[in-house]
């Protein structure tokens, strides 16, 4: 290898802070959370050390053992041994261990040391260890392990300074450790001996976790707390966001008026900007506050260590329907977006449990459905208080979320009954200690979500909206036409064609048109509706108020039917693409898309016909 560059691999048990450390080292922005299994594939970054050497850093998935039982662990083992295709053997392995949890993590350190590669041990979360009163004799630990040991606090700025200095001064050719063939029992005995000699533990380190767990995991209060927490989140999404949403709506409308004011009324450019760009953007942008509030809650819950507790509480129920408690975290992430949710299923070791989770993840109400739900709820459900404290609109939203959850469980149950393999599959899930969420990490997570959303709005959604404007503007109406111009356009004709298929579930041709670009991404449908109605109306300014227009033109049955459609329909290319990537099978994509569209049509048909019969 060249003297000016060096390859470093970060390894360690799940949830020991490898990714936070990676971010500290490289200035990267990987996602950090407080549950096992966040890093699901190798990530690479580089930085220049004070000595001028370029250090290439690999962030590997967490492993409990090198005796790999999951795909993640196999990657980690293979990279360490230089067996991973296309990956050179790392010059130095930085083994990261949670200082508050050395009993478990040291065993892995010993396993890594036996590989005979140069190793540095990073004792991470030293701040938490000190807070808990743990005293670690670092010099003695280093002597007994025979590897350099440095202290780090990965979640704090500058917390990896000692590690960088150490790596920088390491001559990357430490003589290999003697390889011994100790069994698991001996490894544990060795760990116990090392711990006894180097760590002083006060007896009450776990008192806080115990005190919180007593309530949070209580059979009655625990479930109560979980239910209240979830309900509060959805109420907050609706009520906190409202003032900001009003401001955004007014802002976009004002901007649109200002910009288009300079253009001649009735020109094609005026129409494109007003009906295409501003009507489309405004309709979607307005949902940013709600999406961010939802993500805020998920990020805080993730960081605090609460999520695995929720998984614990729900495991039995999820197991009965054919899932696993581990599926709770991917499924909860799917409330934000099914794509990270499906990727997070990699932390489910069991391939069978994992596939089931992937197939039902798109049923979780992702944030892209929020624009559609909010639009319809605001237009059709009266904003009034129920029992003094709750808001009827909030309750309807909660019901829609619940419908997604319930159908996911039902589908998982059907999959469980259909499959032939009935063997036992394990839970074995680690519950981390509670910790206070780090403001910086949460803010960073929110910032990233906002950027991703804005990029989607600015990219795909804008492009599709403009395309739709063209389709609904051309060809123009013939001389002496009486109906709105859109009726003669390509989009209008396409919509009327689709109406034959969707009439039984109550969709008019405007909805049908909006669903076509909406196949690419759910929230596009709202922008598309904005464009379609702006194009078919005579009043240009009404684009900003899509809600009142549809409230006037649609029946309640149509609105409810569209809501039901959105609970199920897999209108998201990215989700289908990620299913294909994660399962490496087009068959699974076809199964997912097929059953979801089937459920969507059936659900909407029932909703529409029943609602019509009742009204």
């Amino acid at each position, binding site marked *: 290898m060249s003297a000016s560059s060096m390859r470093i691999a970060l390894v360690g048990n799940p949830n020991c802070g490898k990714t936070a450390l990676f971010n500290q080292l490289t200035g990267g922005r990987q996602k950090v959370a407080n549950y096992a299994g966040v890093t699901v594939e190798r990530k690479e970054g580089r930085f220049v050390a004070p000595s001028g050497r370029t250090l290439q850093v690999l962030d590997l998935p967490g492993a409990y053992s090198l005796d790999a039982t999951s795909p993640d662990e196999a990657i980690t083992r293979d990279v360490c041994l230089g067996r991973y295709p296309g990956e050179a053997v790392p010059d130095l392995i930085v083994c990261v261990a949670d200082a508050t949890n050395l009993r478990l993590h040291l065993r892995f350190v010993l396993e890594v040391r036996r590989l005979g590669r140069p190793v540095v041990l990073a004792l991470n979360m030293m701040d938490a260890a000190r807070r808990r009163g743990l005293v670690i004799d670092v010099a003695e630990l280093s002597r007994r392990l025979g590897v350099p040991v440095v202290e780090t606090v990965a979640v704090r700025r500058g917390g990896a300074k000692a590690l960088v200095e150490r790596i920088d001064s390491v001559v990357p050719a430490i003589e290999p450790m003697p390889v011994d063939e100790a069994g698991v029992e001996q490894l544990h005995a060795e760990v116990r001996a090392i711990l006894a000699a180097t760590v002083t533990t006060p007896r009450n380190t776990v008192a806080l976790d115990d005190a919180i767990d007593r309530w949070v995991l209580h059979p*009655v209060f625990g479930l109560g707390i979980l239910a209240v927490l979830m309900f509060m989140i959805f109420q907050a999404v609706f009520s906190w966001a409202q003032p900001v949403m009003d401001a955004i709506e007014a802002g976009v409308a004002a901007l649109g008026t200002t910009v288009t004011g300079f253009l001649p009324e009735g020109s094609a450019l005026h129409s494109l900007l007003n009906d295409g760009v501003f009507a489309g953007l405004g309709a979607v942008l307005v949902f940013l506050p709600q999406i961010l509030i939802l993500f805020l809650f998920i990020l805080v819950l993730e960081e605090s260590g609460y999520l695995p507790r929720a998984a614990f509480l729900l495991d039995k129920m999820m197991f009965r329907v054919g899932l696993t408690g581990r599926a709770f975290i991917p499924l909860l992430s799917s409330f934000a977006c099914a794509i990270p949710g499906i990727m997070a299923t990699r932390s489910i070791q069991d391939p069978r449990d994992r596939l089931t989770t992937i197939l039902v993840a798109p049923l979780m109400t992702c944030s892209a459905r929020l624009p559609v739900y909010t639009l319809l709820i605001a237009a059709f459900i009266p904003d009034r208080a129920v029992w003094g404290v709750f808001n009827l609109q909030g309750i309807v939203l909660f019901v829609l979320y619940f419908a997604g959850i319930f159908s996911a469980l039902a589908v998982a149950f059907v999959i469980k009954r259909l499959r032939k393999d009935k063997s*036992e599959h394990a*839970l074995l899930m680690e519950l981390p200690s509670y910790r206070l969420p780090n403001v910086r990490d949460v803010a960073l997570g929110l910032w990233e979500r906002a950027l991703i959303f804005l990029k989607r709005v600015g990219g795909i959604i804008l492009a599709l909206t403009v395309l739709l404007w063209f389709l609904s503007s051309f060809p123009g109406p013939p001389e002496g036409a009486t109906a709105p111009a859109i009726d003669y356009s390509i989009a209008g004709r396409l919509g009327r064609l689709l109406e034959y298929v969707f009439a039984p579930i109550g969709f008019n041709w405007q909805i049908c048109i909006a669903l076509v670009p909406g196949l690419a991404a759910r929230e596009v449908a709202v922008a598309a509706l904005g464009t379609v109605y702006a194009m078919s109306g005579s009043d240009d300014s009404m684009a900003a108020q899509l809600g009142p227009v549809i409230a006037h033109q649609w029946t309640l049955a149509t609105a409810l039917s569209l809501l039901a459609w959105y609970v199920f329909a897999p209108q998201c290319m990215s989700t289908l693409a990620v299913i294909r990537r994660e399962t490496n099978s087009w068959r699974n994509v076809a199964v997912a898309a097929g059953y979801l569209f089937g459920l969507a049509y059936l659900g909407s048909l029932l909703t529409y016909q029943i609602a019509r019969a009742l009204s």
Partner: protein
Amino acid sequence: MRLSDAPKGAQAVVQSVSDAHPADQIAQRLRDLGFVAGEPVRLVARGPLGGDPLLIHIGSTRFALRRNEADRVEVSLEGAA
């Protein structure tokens, strides 16, 4: 006694982990996670439905184990052994 039968909150010590069947992956996993003879363990909590899963404190870590998994772990109560 089996870990799954241990009383809530009681300190216990692992005696052995037995394979439920030949090449038992789950038993191997339990050993990897530190369930080996001599390790002190404590049952912290039981799940809300049918007392399943179990929350086991071992070392300074907590693991959620389903009852079937915990059945593989034989323990003795501290002081009684």
